[in-house]
């Protein structure tokens, strides 16, 4: 009897975690919610830089959300964002060192957009969203899914811009006939991310319509 109850509760937990992951991916933080746009638009000039930013953001979000959540219960509301910022800045010190040794000259290539992962709307708004969960592992899964959504978007934007701007992918030539180097500038990022957001929404709307029963579609 107890075993079957345990099984049911673990099934419910698993279903809840799957829902958290799907919600975070379908409501993409960048393309749907418009969070963390600065690093995605201006920092994603190549796939290498985008990958470094995505890894850094994942380390910061995953490592800072849980300790911040545990502290949140003990500190007054007006101090919450300040404390969360200091914790994510502390997480950036090891994250920055890891990235420095994993990618050559990454701080020079990414400019201000790599340190920018410390303070941006993904961390501040994502943290407010995370506060509605009650268990530690839910926050861990949510923070992972949130940073995964961000990472997939910035890497897609980086790959597209690198191919169009330089005719390469991760530095390897793809025989692009007419590269447009200007697309590596921030305005190229605005256009590519704008088109990606439209595509994401278009596909999402189409999928929603297809899931509706045929009778309801005409209404």
């Amino acid at each position: 009897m107890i075993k079957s109850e345990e099984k049911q509760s673990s099934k419910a937990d698993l279903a809840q975690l799957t829902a958290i992951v799907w919600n975070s991916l379908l409501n993409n933080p960048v393309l749907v919610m418009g969070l963390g746009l600065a690093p995605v638009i201006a920092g994603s000039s190549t796939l290498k830089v985008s990958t470094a930013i995505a890894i850094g953001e994942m380390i910061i979000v995953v490592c800072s959300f849980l300790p911040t959540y545990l502290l949140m219960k003990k500190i007054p509301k007006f101090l919450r964002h300040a404390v969360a910022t200091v914790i994510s800045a502390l997480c950036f010190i090891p994250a920055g060192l890891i990235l420095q040794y994993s990618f050559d000259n990454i701080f020079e290539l990414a400019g201000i957009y790599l340190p920018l992962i410390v303070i941006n709307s993904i961390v501040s708004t994502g943290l407010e969203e995370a506060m509605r969960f009650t268990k530690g592992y839910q926050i861990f899964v949510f923070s992972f899914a949130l940073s995964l959504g961000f990472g997939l978007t910035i890497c897609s934007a980086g790959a597209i811009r690198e191919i169009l701007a330089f005719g390469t992918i991760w530095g390897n030539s793809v025989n692009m006939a007419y590269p447009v180097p200007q697309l590596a500038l921030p305005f190229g990022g605005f256009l590519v991310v704008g088109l990606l957001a439209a595509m994401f929404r278009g596909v999402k709307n189409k999928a929603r319509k297809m899931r509706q029963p045929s009778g309801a579609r005409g209404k």
Partner: protein
Amino acid sequence: MSYLTLVISAVFVQNIIFTKALGITLTVQSISKPKQLFASGILLTVILTLSAMVSYYPARLFDSASLTLKNVMVPFVFSVSVAIISVVLLFVARWKFKKQYAMIFRQLPLVAFDSAVFGILLLTVKNVQGFVPIILYSIASGVGFVLASFILSGIYHFCNGENTPAAFRGLPATLIYMGIVSMAFYAFSAKILF
């Protein structure tokens, strides 16, 4: 660089929204409310200027440190400065601006912990030298933010109108419009793009 050149550069040539893509989330979230956008712009300028003042000397401590240490420690110094200034401003607002406190309490974290403040502080390390130029650059960048966000608030209705295809309505159309205006802003830097 003269102070006038610095100010013109921060407002137009290196406008934080159109040439650096900073503060876009804040703009996109408040684009439908011009009054709120203006209040955010003023709040941003105040937070930025005070944070630049507070962090100026601590950030210079790492000037002689190795590049690796500087790359990871300067962001930490800026983050702590922004955090301290945001808390102090909340106290001041509670004490001096009791009527506006609820609005400031709601708006301040959105502004202070957006990419705009932190991004400009990071830019000052590379682009500006000296205490007074940094303060001027911070104020001018705030003015540039207000100017750019007003340009964008004018097109809000077009980007959300019935004539805009459903998939492009809202954020995608706004970003594409920003991209076109951003291209125009490159004319200020006298760069030949194509």
